[in-house]
């Protein structure tokens, strides 16, 4: 086990793309600075060398142009993997994403396929300020027609990328900058895990129980999973047993796994680096509460990003971000409280 190959998420993503490109000549990669530079976040490193700049092509700074071009190419039989450098930039090209890419299958009554992957970086924590630090999970997951995934570790990163490329529907692949394994972003080491060399898929739409527990369920995705795991470790020492659910996919959402876990623990905390209101955290809480057969021992809690633009100054940003301490504190509270039945 000690000698097993560990990869960063960035390398796991690149490996999945490379393997699919070797298998399938219709797979190609396109985006800003993804060829010679290998992607600002390293996830296309090496691809241009192996496959050339025809299949791994740098684009102008024209996100609407090249993302909608990817839709046209996908409808014509190609399998583009496209990068939107920061998810924060979605505003300049969202029509191409939510109104075109996500809807053409439906508008065609299922007669066309749109097999494409849109990968994009998310997350803050390194003072990149309000236009380069958002997660926006909810903004994508809210709108129909696109699958939405986000890995918390390199194993899932490779398997989800492989599954996404092979999918005949559009997949938004969100990778958190703080998990990429790029040292200059202060990466989370626990995201670098063993990754098998052969190609494999991680099913899109299946959550993972990353840690079993009995007292409280902590649901999260991407970076939040690591906050949850760290909190769980601290809580364990205090006698609180936390179960950690890594959603991995927001669309489809694995409501069954979430509900089953809370049915067992009776307590729910959602950790979400996206904005608080009208997003992921509310949806998970509603999912549990509307089930009808789950008796909660305490009111559900969420640790989410407050509804403010992301500030630059370190102290301000860290004040807003979820972290293991906030998660642990919430867990202690819900485990203390018991709803009077």
């Amino acid at each position, binding site marked *: 086990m000690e000698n097993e190959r560990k990869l960063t998420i960035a390398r796991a993503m690149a490996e999945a793309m490379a393997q699919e490109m070797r298998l399938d000549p*219709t797979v*190609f990669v396109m985006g800003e600075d993804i060829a010679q530079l290998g992607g600002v976040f390293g996830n296309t490193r090496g691809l241009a060398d192996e496959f050339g700049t*025809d*299949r791994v092509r740098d*684009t*102008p700074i*024209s*996100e*609407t*142009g*090249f*993302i*909608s*071009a*990817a*839709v*046209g*190419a*996908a*409808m*014509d*039989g*190609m399998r*583009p993997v496209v990068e939107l450098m920061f998810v924060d930039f979605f505003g300049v090209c969202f*029509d*191409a994403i939510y*109104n*075109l890419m996500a809807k*053409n*299958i*439906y*508008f*065609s*009554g*299922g*007669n*066309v*396929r*749109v*097999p494409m992957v849109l990968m994009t970086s998310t997350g803050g924590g390194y003072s990149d300020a309000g236009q380069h630090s958002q997660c926006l999970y909810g903004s994508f997951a809210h709108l*129909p*027609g696109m*699958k939405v995934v986000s890995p918390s570790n390199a194993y899932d990163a490779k398997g989800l990328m492989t599954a996404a490329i092979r999918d*005949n*529907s559009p997949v938004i692949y969100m990778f958190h900058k703080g998990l990429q394994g790029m040292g200059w972003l202060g990466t989370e080491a626990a995201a670098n895990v063993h990754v098998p060399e052969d190609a494999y898929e991680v099913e899109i739409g299946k959550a993972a129980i990353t840690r079993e527990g009995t007292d409280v369920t902590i649901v999260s995705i991407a970076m939040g999973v690591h906050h949850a795991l760290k909190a769980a470790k601290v809580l364990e020492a205090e006698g609180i047993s936390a179960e950690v659910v890594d959603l991995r996919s927001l669309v489809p959402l694995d409501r069954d796994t979430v509900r089953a876990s809370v049915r067992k623990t009776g307590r729910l905390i959602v950790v979400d680096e996206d904005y608080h209101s009208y997003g992921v955290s509310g949806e998970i809480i509603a999912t549990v509460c509307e089930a009808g057969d789950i008796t909660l021992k305490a009111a559900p809690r969420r640790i989410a990003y407050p509804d403010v633009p992301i500030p630059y100054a370190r102290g301000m940003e860290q004040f807003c971000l979820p972290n293991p301490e906030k998660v642990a504190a919430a867990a202690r509270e819900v485990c203390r409280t018991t709803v009077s039945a």
Partner: protein
Amino acid sequence: MNPSKQTLGWMYQTMVTSRIFETTIEKIYMEGKSPVFNMANGPIPGEMHLSNGQEPVAVGVCAHLGPEDIVTATHRPHHQAIAKGVDLDRMTAEIFGKATGLSGGRGGHMHLFDPAVNFACAGIIAQGMGPAVGAALSRKMQNKPGVAIAFIGEGAANQGAFHEAMNLAAVWKLPMICVIEDNAWGISVAKAAATSVTRNDVRAAAYGIPGHYVAGNDPWKIYEVAGQAIARARAGDGPTLIEVETYRLAGHFMGDAEGYRPKGEKDGLFAKDPIPAMRKRLEADGTFTAAELDAMQAIADATVQAAIRFARDSAEPRPEDALTAVFA
């Protein structure tokens, strides 16, 4: 580049088919919508954008295309769909919202998809630009034949997507052509109030590609200019920007009172209706006899009536099928 007799016959008959289709749809659209005009009612609900007057652009361009070529059209897609060879029965059924429609009633008149002839359209201004570029890229990368045409209105040339897509097509030298149908209006806003240049062909300079303007809504000239651009694209020499002067004989959509039109404009347009004009010229120069042209008209009429019958006779989709076909 002159159209052959056969091509001219196809062009005329296709224009007439489109025209009869639209005048028929126009009538049916009003069923159930009087005495009170409510878009939600009748066998054809929702918005309805007619293209009559603009047929020359569709046939002048599509005369050069085969089923393998790609067309992305707009919210005003009927003439282009018909010229591209979209299955008229299933297209009509789609406009009627029937189960036999191109997408089983999910799309409607602004979302006609016929992959058999590589036709798609969209309700968002300039949204078809990027997909045309992408289809052209796909062909180039796969070394497969085919050109991609994005039809847009003159109002769409002020949308960011136009600029990004043209630059991309030019940088990558793709077999893509943008054809702008300049009908002088974007809903109620005149071209001069919206566009900083009189003619959009000059914008080709911004991409280092050829630009052409075709005046007069003339099927022959459109055929010629489009033919050159398409030949150029097929030869691997990259994109072209074409703007065509055309006329919107109807309102922007059905229900539009057209109060914004200068007085007399409509009369002038009807006097320039391209279909009688083409007929006159075809007769005058002896290409076809009146009888031949009448026969074409009869075929067009029969084709349209058959499509309408097919649509009327088709079943409604099951309501709950609304939940299907979200993913492939």
